[in-house]
Structure formats: structure tokens, C-alpha cells
């Protein structure tokens, strides 16, 4: 049966609330450094080496590059629905030079997926040597860290029909764990909840539309982001600008 909502809320609070602004700024600075300096050098090195994969660690961060042709590229990618649901995953594993940013040290055996749009920005992640990358993006929302640190997206807790909540329209202030709507699973409502505090932004799916598990549904704009950016001395760089 569908999972209980309280458990979901708890994990989201944890996911969103366990980093201080300072840590967040430091993370962003690290991502910028990796993306700006290290990455071009690594791409060149990977191309020249003929290796399939290259991995570099710096502090708590890890970058893994995987070259083209390592992983099938069958062209037709599952359903449009699936692709739409996971903007971050399309290139995961097979796109040339797919970037995987990891933070080490979660005791679980699930390594959060490498694609930068996945949940990994908000929580520490195992550098699981054997299993590599397996996303479990479902429960929490997705944080768009390096692309846009001021947004997260509430995702679908189940497969069913999405119905947004009228009381939380675009522009409404919400707290982490607040209901944004439901996904109707055979008549049983499953709450879609805000992964963080913020302001409701765009709704990515029409009311009454079928959604799959983990699909991105509602954007949450982080209201405190500009303050965080300046307080951290611009550490989050282009992401917050």
C-alpha cells in the first residue's frame, strides 16, 4: 500500500535542513571550482587517455567522468514521460562526459545518482565503490544546486493522477512538508509535499495529468537564497546570480 506521508515529510526535512548556509556556500564554491577549473582539464585528459572513466577526489567531493561509448546509446530513451520526469537523468551514464558530483560518507548502501540535478546536493552520499550510481530521488524533492540554488522541485510520491492543491497556488509561501497537492493512486490520495521552505513557483504538470513516481511536479523558489548568497560572500557564485 502507499507509504505513509509522515515518514516522507521527515526525510524531506532532513534532506533540506541539515546544511548550514556556510556549508552550502562552501559546497557551491567547490562545485564552481570543479566545474570551472578541474572539469575542462579532466575532459581533455579523458579524451587523450583513451580511458573509459576517470575519477578525481577533492575534499569531500568526487568527480567521475565517463567517456562516450561506455554504456549503451540506443537512441530511443524509454518513454517521453520518463524522460520528462527526470530532466537530470537523460544524460546520466551515457552522455559524453556525464558529470557525477558526489559527497562521501552516508552509511547507506544507496549511492545517490551522479547527475547534478538529483538529490545529492542536499545530503551526504556514499562514494559506494562497487555499485556506483543509483538514484533514489523519489521521496525528497530535487534541488537544482549548481544550476539554480534558489529552486527545488517537489516530486511525485507515487504513480497516479496529479491534483494540485488550490490553497497553495503559485506565489504562496510554504514550509517544508506542506502539502502542495496529491497524486491519486486508485482513489487513495498521496500527498505531494514541499521539500523545503519557500514560495510556490511553476507547476510543471497539468491538473488531472498522469504522473510517474519521482516525476517533478511543483517548483519551490527559496526565498532566503539572496540573503544566503551575500552573507556567504558570494560563495555560491554564478548559481545565485
Amino acid at each position, binding site marked *: 500500500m502507499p507509504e505513509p506521508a509522515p515518514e516522507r515529510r521527515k526525510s524531506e526535512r532532513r534532506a533540506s535542513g541539515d546544511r548550514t548556509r556556510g556549508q552550502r556556500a562552501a559546497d557551491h564554491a567547490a562545485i564552481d571550482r570543479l566545474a570551472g577549473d578541474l572539469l575542462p582539464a579532466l575532459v581533455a585528459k579523458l579524451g587523450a587517455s583513451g580511458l573509459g572513466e576517470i575519477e578525481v577526489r577533492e575534499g569531500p567531493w568526487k568527480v567521475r567522468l565517463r567517456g562516450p561509448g561506455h554504456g549503451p546509446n540506443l537512441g530511443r530513451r524509454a518513454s517521453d514521460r520518463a524522460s520528462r520526469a527526470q530532466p537530470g537523468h537523460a544524460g546520466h551514464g551515457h552522455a559524453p562526459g556525464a558529470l557525477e558530483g558526489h559527497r562521501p560518507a552516508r552509511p547507506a548502501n544507496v549511492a545517490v545518482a551522479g547527475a547534478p540535478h538529483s538529490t545529492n546536493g542536499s545530503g551526504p552520499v556514499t562514494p559506494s565503490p562497487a*555499485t556506483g550510481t543509483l*538514484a533514489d*530521488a*523519489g521521496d525528497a524533492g530535487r534541488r537544482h544546486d549548481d544550476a539554480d540554488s534558489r529552486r527545488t522541485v517537489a516530486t511525485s510520491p*507515487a504513480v497516479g493522477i496529479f491534483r494540485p492543491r488550490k490553497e497553495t497556488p503559485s506565489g504562496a509561501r510554504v514550509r517544508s512538508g506542506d502539502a502542495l497537492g496529491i497524486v491519486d493512486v486508485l482513489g487513495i490520495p498521496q500527498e505531494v509535499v514541499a521539500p523545503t521552505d519557500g514560495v510556490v513557483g511553476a507547476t510543471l504538470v497539468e491538473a488531472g495529468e498522469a504522473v510517474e513516481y519521482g516525476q517533478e511536479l511543483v517548483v519551490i523558489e527559496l526565498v532566503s537564497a539572496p540573503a544566503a548568497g551575500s552573507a556567504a560572500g558570494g560563495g555560491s557564485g554564478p548559481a545565485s546570480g
Partner: protein
Amino acid sequence: MFRKILIANRGEIALRVLRACRELGVDAVVAYSEADRDSLPVQLADEAICIGPSDAKRSYLSAPAIISAAIITGCDAIHPGYGFLSEDEGFAEVVRAHDLTFIGPPPQVLDRFGSKEGTRRLLANHGLPTIPGSRGLLRDDMHALEEAERIGYPILIKPSAGGGGKGMRMVRSPRELESAIKVCRSEAKAAFGDDSLYLEKWLEDNRHVEVQVAVDRYGQGVHLGERDCSVQRRHQKIVEEAPTPAMSPAARAALCETAIKAVVAAGYENIGTLEFLVDRDGNAFFIEINCRIQVEHPVTEVLTGIDMVVTQIRIAAGEPLGFTQADVEFRGHAIEFRINAEDPANDFRPAAGRIERYLVPGGPGIRMDSHVYAGYEVPPFYDSLLGKLIVWGPDRPTAIARARGALDELVIDGIVTNVPIHQALLTSEPFLEGRITTSMLDRVGSAAFLAAASRA
């Protein structure tokens, strides 16, 4: 025929069902968990839908998630594959309540044959010799001890739901029984969501022989011969072959005919497999029926040329079988090797990780059913089956020779597999002489088995 089928499974069987749908010209949607996002069936499907997280309880074992996925993608039938919800009559019933068809026996038939313990009594009434066992499911430890005493040790503890060796233990004493029952209950609960157990007399040195049947809605039934699945490790089949080297052609024919008569008389419908234990003297005892497609179905397919999955879907759609027993011909000999991601030198510990190189063997009589590819990450959440190598030859020695070549050609780098155990098997006298019994691998120990093979 159905318009669109939801494939509610993963791995090689999801791909196998997808291929059958293609052949039938039926649209298919692959339902997948987040851990299987990059899997081959998901990539090859015209349409795929994520139904939940990696935890099977919230994806492949979640009836609401699967049925909801079928409805929103416009499917009119659900194929459950094997394992997961494939033998869950409650699931089949809910599927029907949502005006969808469960591809398998209809709910009332599953209800009659769903309980392994009940089926044994039903088919005994229809003339099948059955193995002595407990009367009813085990209520508690005291009941188990009483029943075990009555049947006599050694005893096999079995879960009433599901298969695949999970929740199954052989015990030789009341003390072993008491401690094993707890383990079996928790394993069965985890694997099938049902912890009911029963007992069966354990036959020493038995062989496992099963009969494949297909019965349509109109009571027309055929058997498709038997398969010998005696090569097992802890009650898990690793090699299957047909015909069985354990029985004479006359004995095989008699067993198959008894089996099909009994299930037709008992009102079975769709494809099914009747499992028997064959003792040292060649006596066969019915143990259970599997109301689903089985892992080893390709053995029958290459022997008869009949597509088992297509047949299963057609029967579920209400079509007549379209052929009779006289149309079923058996050609040559077939052997299937289950290629598992597990380490035979290390107590078959399951492995997960990335497959770096993958090369499939070829040539006459070789078939590989697999969902893996170079670059595929084997997730750690599910069973360890990477694929099945099926080898056909005009006779058993030719099939064995082709199998040796094919196993040598097969390349799976980056992850440990059980291929060495298959290679060892193909040099072992008991196998070559067709005298392997279900407990042999466990008794010898896989490490000793490998070592003996490397000396030979």
C-alpha cells in the same frame, strides 16, 4: 487479443515478455523501479513508467503502484513475469476488479491452485502420486513438531507462497526444525509478503523433474514435455535440461500424460509447471504447481519450437490453444545455464557493480536471454540472475559440447559470475552421466566441486 500490456517485472523476463508483445503486435509498457532506470527493457520499451523506489515492496511488489501505472498508461492487461506478484492470487483478484486482465490463470483458478499445500491434496484426488507432507499450514512450532514427527525426518520446510528456494530449509531433527522455522518465516515474509509454511518429506538423492502444461479456457490441454532441474544449490535451480536423463522415454511419457490429465480434470487454466521429485527407483512424487512462466521456459521452447510466453498471453486473452498433443514434437536435447552475479568461490555471495565488457556466444543451437550490456550497473536490490544461456543439440553429448564452447566464449567482465561452476559441471562425471541429484552440489560444496574440476 489485448491492446496494451503492462510488464510488471524487471531483468531478463521483462525483456522476454517485451519480445513476445512485439511478436504479437501488442503495445507494451515496462514498469520499473528507480534502480532499473538504465536497464535494457526500459531502454528498449516503446513506453516505460517509473512505479517506485528501488525497494521492491514499494515498486515491483506494490499492487497499487502497478495497477495505477497500468490504468494511467491505458493498458488492459498486466504481465507479472515470475517472482514478485506472479503467484499472488490477491493481486490477480485486484487486477480483475480494475477491469484489467492478469496474464496467468484467472483468479478463481489461482485461488484453487495458489496454496501449495492445498494443491497437493487437490491433485492427489485427481490421481497424482504426492509426497507425504503436513496436513494444512503450520500454525505454530508445536504443530510443526507434531507434523514432522508424524511424517518422519528429514523434512523440508516450504513456504506456501512463491518459490526460488527462499524460505526453504531441510532439517534432520526437531531442534533444527525449531530454529529453521523462524528463518523460513522471515524469508518468506520478505520475499512473498506471506509467511505461511508447510512441511514435506525430504527424499534423499532425489531428482527434480517438472512437467510443462498448457490448458486453454475451453479445457483443451497439452503437455510440453518435462525438464530436469536437479542441478541445484540450496534449492535454487542453476541448470535445467530436457529430456531428463533420469527416466526412460516410456516413464517420461507416462509422467507427462498423468500430469496433463490431472490438471485438466482439476480445472487448471493457462500455462503451468508441475514439479515432481523422482526417487532413486524412478518413482515420481508431485510436490507443487507453478502457475506462471518459469525461468527455465526456454528449454521447452527450443525443444518444441513453441513460444511459451506468447502461448501464455494468448490463453489469458481467451484464445483457444490452437494445437493438440499430436502437434507437439520434441527435437533433440536442450540445456539452460543460469548466469548469476554471484561468486562460486565465495559461498555464492551475490555481487553488484558495473559490467565492463560483455560478449554473447553464438553459433548453432545457442540462445542467450539477458538484460545486461557493457556499462550496465547491476543493482544490489534484486536477485542475481544476469541471464540464461540456452544450448540446443540434436543429442545430449552435442548439446554439452556446444555448451562448453559457448561458456568459454561468454565474456562478462567487471562482476563475478557463476560461470566457473557451470564449466566445472560440464567436466564432472555425475553430470555427464546424468546422475546429478538435487543435494549433490551442497553436499560436495561448491569450492570442492570447483577444485575437483580444475584437477580433472
